[in-house]
């Protein structure tokens, strides 16, 4: 069966014969082929997940999208996923790409946050709020740390190692200033946010080079970022394991499919990892505090 027929079969897309485009990704050892009738959508995903692009090969998962050419927001019924011989329509309950809800990707735990570190240990900065968290991560990079993941941190429930997840960074002028990166850097792709601001998207490896780690790391500390700062010096406060477990559960990106395995892993992580809250000061001050207290 050719790809156009696959598109029609999976999504009911009409007239897909001449327009389908494809890309291959490898995410956490799962090979994913995307077949899309929308060039815009595939281009968007390819920019966000550029570091995951690989040469074509046999796929573990095939994502088929029959969205119209002018839309970059697939609706339920316009997508399907194929794992082995099984074709499943996409219901819209979880993002179509990357399909973290499908095996083998559903075997990981996903936390909302950033992972930055030194040597083989990472500090997991956990928070839903991207701008402040990314700025803090960037300030730590400026001090010589490396970045493992920003936005989603995959955690192996067996060995509790955090895996690299080099999704494209989204940086504003302040973040680029902290890193001392020229706005004309070839890795930067500007775009306008819905609020009209200009920000830049960048493949972490192209932008950061050796400071973008591709090696899994131990979680040396968990830091939950408070939303409000101290109007001055940043403050790091230890958490009880009970509090840490509650906060960790709240930062799960998605419910673990193997619930007991997932929760066991979180309990284990709380047992063996120091946990803190950070009431942030300026990004530079906060980064210095974390670096000196937890990494150096």
């Amino acid at each position, binding site marked *: 069966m050719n790809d156009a027929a696959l598109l029609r079969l999976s999504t009911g897309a009409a007239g897909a014969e001449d327009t389908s485009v494809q890309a291959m990704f490898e995410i956490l050892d799962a090979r994913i082929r995307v077949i899309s009738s929308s060039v815009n959508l595939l281009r968007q995903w390819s920019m966000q997940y550029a570091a995951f692009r690989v040469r074509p090969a046999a796929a573990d998962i095939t994502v088929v999208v029959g969205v119209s050419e002018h839309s970059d927001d697939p609706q339920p019924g316009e997508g399907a996923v194929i794992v082995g011989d099984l074709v499943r329509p996409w219901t819209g309950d979880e993002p179509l790409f990357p399909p973290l809800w499908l095996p083998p990707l559903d075997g990981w735990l996903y936390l909302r946050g950033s992972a930055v570190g030194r040597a083989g240990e990472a500090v997991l900065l956990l928070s839903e709020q991207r701008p402040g968290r990314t700025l803090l991560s960037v300030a730590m990079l400026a001090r010589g740390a490396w970045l493992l993941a920003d936005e989603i941190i995959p955690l192996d429930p067996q060995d509790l190692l955090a895996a690299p997840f080099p999704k494209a960074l989204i940086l504003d002028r302040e973040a680029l200033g902290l890193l001392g990166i020229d706005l004309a850097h070839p890795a930067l792709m500007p775009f306008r946010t819905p609020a009209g601001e200009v920000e830049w998207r960048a493949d972490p490896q192209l932008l950061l080079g050796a400071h973008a780690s591709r090696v899994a790391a131990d979680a040396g500390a968990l830091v939950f970022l408070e939303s409000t700062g101290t109007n001055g010096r940043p403050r790091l406060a230890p958490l009880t*394991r*009970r509090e840490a*477990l*509650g906060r960790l*559960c*709240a930062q*799960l990106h998605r*419910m673990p499919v193997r619930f*007991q395995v997932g929760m066991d892993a979180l*309990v284990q992580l709380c047992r063996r990892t120091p946990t803190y809250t950070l009431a942030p000061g300026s990004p530079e001050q906060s980064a210095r505090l974390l670096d000196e207290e937890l990494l150096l």
Partner: protein
Amino acid sequence: MVPSWEEPRVWIMHPQRRTPPDEAPRPVSLGTGKALVRRPAVERRLDDDRVLIDVIGKATYVLNPTAWESWELCDGRRTPDQIVSELARRYQVDEATVAPGFLRVLAVLEAAELVVEADP
């Protein structure tokens, strides 16, 4: 040595959602005279607390030591009244001291169907 009494507490740690235990309704088993029994759940230690992982209900609960003891006393033989009496005896405090906290914990565990009335 008699352990010191601490108000029993249970914390619900549901991924993506946290329900304050205070929102749990009154225990349904109260006044029925029936014994309570706990449903199997995965149990883990976390410092002095214990963690109950409810695989069926897809939720996780952290119980402090007195809540844990309350849970363990739901053994299929004791009614709520008898559990309160037993806790009061073990900690050498009044039943009136034990009862309010125990009932709050029982309400949460019943709402989660981790504790049910035992079959006669």
